[in-house]
């Protein structure tokens, strides 16, 4: 799932992702698909939990790409 200004880059908010094993591989795929993502600031959440560094991705996990929050 893509949120906020990231949807300006992806043009969509949900997308089936390739089966990758960790977030490093996922980032590589994302940058290849959407080169503008290299310049975007975003966090990754796996199953509603923010992750940092390289994290394993369980099968069937729900992935969220999220720019800085701006609620309130």
């Amino acid at each position: 799932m893509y949120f906020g200004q990231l949807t300006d880059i992806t043009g969509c908010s949900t997308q089936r992702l390739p089966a990758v094993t960790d977030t490093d591989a996922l980032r590589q795929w994302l940058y290849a698909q959407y080169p503008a993502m290299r310049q975007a600031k975003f966090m990754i959440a796996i199953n509603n939990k923010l992750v940092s560094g390289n994290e394993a991705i369980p099968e069937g996990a729900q992935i969220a790409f999220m720019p800085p929050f701006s609620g309130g």
Partner: protein
Amino acid sequence: MSEQKKPKNIFTQGPVDPAFIADSIAKHATKTSIGGHSIFLGQVRADVIEGKQVEAIEYTSHEAMALEKMTEIREAIFAKYPLTCMHVHHSLGAIKAGEICLFVFTSSAHRKAAIDACNECVERIKAELPVWGKEIFQGEGYQWKVNQ
């Protein structure tokens, strides 16, 4: 053993109505151990950016994640302050300039706990909830809101 409680919803489509705020306040009249209420309201500003005026902010959220995080924030704040109760409402969808988009309401026997808890809750909501605001300009165009 551990029971997964469904997180309490905080999201509401459209602005927070002042009449709803009044009802919330009135409901606390039976809780006579309360001595002070602290309320924060976020209101959408008609900022002018490079000649274009914001007419609304359209809020979206990763709702499931936001509600989980809000549950965590709520528990941390109840553990830290002697609160009687705490209520949070955040708008989703397009909220026009002048309308209320955030309502945080804390109550305690003494004012300090209510005030400090309210402030901490507002700060954490703005910093930690996956919510995004899209500032819609009059006429056409938009920009993404940036907090702080």
